[in-house]
């Protein structure tokens, strides 16, 4: 029945009431006290039906993102099954507990043959009888003597404090890491006051389908159900008032009806807002505090009585002071200012649109409005040169530099003493030798030559990982380290270039000179490929690898920064190395130790490092809590 009929019936009833009021009993209605009671009961029944029908209708409001926070870093190793599967290229293990156990078995064999003094048969036998580890429970489990306990059994185990299933998985991973020689004392990474990141869903305003070219986009509109239930006041008062014949209680019904009508005031229409966002420093240094000022003006014709603003802080920046949110009221032409401070970090940071939630006067309708003002902060890292040089390979150019070659000549490091030849410089004649034997001899030093080095930074989606959610991800660490080595290698007279794995547009050919250095610094600061936020899509190796190969000149060394979380990275680097581009890897360690899956992912990565080292590629395992300089000094 449409509402028109209700109003018609209401009108007819009202007319009848007026007639009865002035000329009682003209209509001859059979109205008695019982009829009144029936009306009261019907009203109460209606109240009950309202209650029942509203159980599922919850109050709704916009879930605003945690714009104050930096986007949490992904920690590799989400599910143990996936990590176990990553150990094998071909076999799919499946997801059952038995498959998990046999997966562990294979990992154990692989670890023992690689890091222990076992042959494959011996390793299999050792796993079979559980003698490979000191942890007997784990030994028995992998030997198949201890199956996954049933639910009752697990309860029982909990009660008598025997190792539970989760702790068994954990201990197995620990035993495997032990066998691979990974030290277990990384647990100090977890901060005492670190936040609970599991509930952070989004850290920036991320509208679906907004128009970035126009300043204002209307988003979704929702009924808030804020006044749901106020109708109950009306019907309950009506019912109780009639039944008890109490005019006072009946009056309450009038109040309730008033609010029900109030809640149905129309939604705000013709919303028009203007935004102006300014930052006090568009090119800060890392660590600088940048003040952001957002001014929102009501350019429409109606007053906005309930305006809730949430600014689109870049996901890669954290708010350090003030709040990027405000609840305010704007008359036409009025404006309001939100001011807060962010701490700058390296990279190009773009602001997302501001989210304005506009409610109507009673607050029963909420409209999402996105306001765009393109603003960005570009933060270039400070130019600092690393104190330690990178462990370069012995491929060199014809120019003098810092790499010691096998060729004798002028230099610093003694190589050999040979017979004097005409034309040898007097400074290199060994006069002690002459005094002893009467013959002339020349000292040869190792010649030092420069290299042509390309800093290749892994900036693919998979590289945006780190050991804890609030730790910097591997790409940030890589760029930081590469920036310092870039300066150092240039200081040493090498030709240095920059490229990114995953994006062919990021390219700086190896060269020298002040201008080149400046261009490199800018690239580290603001290149889109080295953005502090992970790219949306994965890119195929073909997209970036072939252009890279074509650009590389023969003999160029590759200094690769990669967390090595993808299996095919190892293959790819070995192939590049074999093709005559000597590869050195500096790998920021992105693996966490909070869960068994994360620890197992750490083991997987360690095995990849071993693969590379066995292929003759030097690898620096860059620990999360260390500066690159310290790590290079510690690595022989």
């Amino acid at each position, binding site marked *: 029945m449409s509402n028109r009929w209700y109003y018609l019936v209401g009108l007819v009833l009202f007319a009848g009431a007026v007639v009865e009021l002035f000329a009682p009993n003209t209509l001859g209605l059979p109205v008695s006290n019982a009829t*009144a009671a029936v009306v009261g009961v019907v009203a109460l029944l209606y109240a009950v039906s309202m209650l029942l029908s509203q159980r599922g209708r919850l*109050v709704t409001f916009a879930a*605003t993102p945690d714009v104050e926070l930096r986007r949490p870093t992904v920690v590799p190793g989400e599910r143990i099954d996936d990590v176990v599967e990553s150990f094998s290229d071909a076999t799919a293990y499946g997801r059952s507990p038995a498959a998990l156990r046999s997966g562990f078995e294979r990992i154990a064999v692989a670890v023992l043959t690689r890091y222990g003094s076992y042959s494959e048969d011996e390793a299999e036998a050792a796993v079979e009888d559980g003698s490979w580890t000191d942890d007997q429970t784990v030994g028995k489990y992998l030997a198949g003597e201890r199956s996954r306990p049933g639910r009752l059994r697990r309860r029982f185990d909990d009660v008598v404090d025997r190792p539970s299933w989760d702790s068994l998985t954990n201990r197995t991973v620990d035993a495997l890491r032990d066998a691979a020689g990974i030290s277990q004392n990384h647990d100090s990474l977890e901060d005492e006051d670190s936040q609970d990141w599991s509930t952070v869903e989004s850290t920036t305003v991320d509208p679906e389908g907004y128009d970035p070219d126009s300043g204002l986009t209307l988003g979704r509109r929702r009924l808030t159900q804020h006044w749901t239930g106020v109708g109950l006041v009306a*019907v309950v008062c009506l019912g109780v008032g009639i039944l008890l014949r109490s005019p006072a209680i009946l009056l309450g019904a009038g*109040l309730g*009806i008033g609010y029900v009508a109030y809640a149905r005031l129309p939604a705000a229409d013709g919303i028009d807002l203007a935004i102006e966002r300014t930052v006090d420093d568009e090119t800060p240094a890392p660590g600088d505090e940048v003040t952001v000022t957002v001014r929102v003006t009501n350019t429409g014709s109606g007053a906005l*009585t309930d305006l809730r603003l949430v600014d689109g802080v870049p996901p890669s920046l954290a708010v350090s002071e003030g709040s990027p949110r405000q609840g305010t*009221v704007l008359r036409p032409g009025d404006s309001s200012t939100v001011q807060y401070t962010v701490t700058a970090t390296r990279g190009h940071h773009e602001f997302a649109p501001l989210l304005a939630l506009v409610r109507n006067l009673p607050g029963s309708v909420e409209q999402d409005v996105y306001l765009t003002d393109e603003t960005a902060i570009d933060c270039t890292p400070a130019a600092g040169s690393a104190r330690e040089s990178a462990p370069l390979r012995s491929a060199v150019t014809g120019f003098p530099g810092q790499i010691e070659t096998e060729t004798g000549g002028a230099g610093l490091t003694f190589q050999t003493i040979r017979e004097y030849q005409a034309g040898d410089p007097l400074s290199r004649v060994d006069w002690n030798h002459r005094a002893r034997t009467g013959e002339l001899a020349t000292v040869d030093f190792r010649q030092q030559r420069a290299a042509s080095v390309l800093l290749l930074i892994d900036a693919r989606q998979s590289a945006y990982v780190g050991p804890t959610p609030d730790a910097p991800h591997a790409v940030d660490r890589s760029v930081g380290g590469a920036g310092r080595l870039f300066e150092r290698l240039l200081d040493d007279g090498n030709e240095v270039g920059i490229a990114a794995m995953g994006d062919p547009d990021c390219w700086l050919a190896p060269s020298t000179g002040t201008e080149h250095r400046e261009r490199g610094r800018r690239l580290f600061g603001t290149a889109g490929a080295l953005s502090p936020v992970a790219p949306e899509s994965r890119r195929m190796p073909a997209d970036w690898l072939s252009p890279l190969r074509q650009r590389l000149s023969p003999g160029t060394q590759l200094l690769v920064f990669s967390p090595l979380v993808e299996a095919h990275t190892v293959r790819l680097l070995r192939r590049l190395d074999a093709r005559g581009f000597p590869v050195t890897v500096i790998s920021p360690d992105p693996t966490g130790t909070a869960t068994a899956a994360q620890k197992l992912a750490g083991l997987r990565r360690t095995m990849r490092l071993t693969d590379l080292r066995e292929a003759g590629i030097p690898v620096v395992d860059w620990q999360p809590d260390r500066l690159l300089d310290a790590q290079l000094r510690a690595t022989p």
Partner: protein
Amino acid sequence: MNRITRKPTIVSSVAAVAAAATGLLLSGLYSSLALVAAAGGLIFLGVAAVTGVRPLVTVGALGVFAAAVAAGVRGAPPIILLGAVLAAVLAYDFGGTAVDLGEELGREADTRRLEVLRLATSSLAGFGAATASYLVYLVGAGGQPLSAVVLLLITVFVLFVALRREQPVQR
């Protein structure tokens, strides 16, 4: 920087508790049952203001409303009863506003302008409705034929149902 505190905003929470306390004072004078119900509602609202659990606001406001009805049953005069019902509705509105403002903007954000206006408009709407009903009561109280009163009440009921079916936006 830490996350924002997604808890009910202070101004609206205080206003909600104050409204509930007013309801308790008005209806508690007339019935001990009302006193108990309103006190319970006040406690629920207080807890809701700290924890931000929306259903507690509803339960608390229901307690204050039940107290008002109980006072009415015990013969509270219309003015008092209207005040008590108004207090219950306002406690519900303020409490709900505090919770969803807190969820959306957090306690750190500046929301005073918005809250003050919201408190004022909701109260005004309530005073308007209460005054209108009271005027109807003053004009039409006593001596009306039963058939006319019953017909009027049915009219009110039918129109109320129609009103409830309306939405503030066109779908």
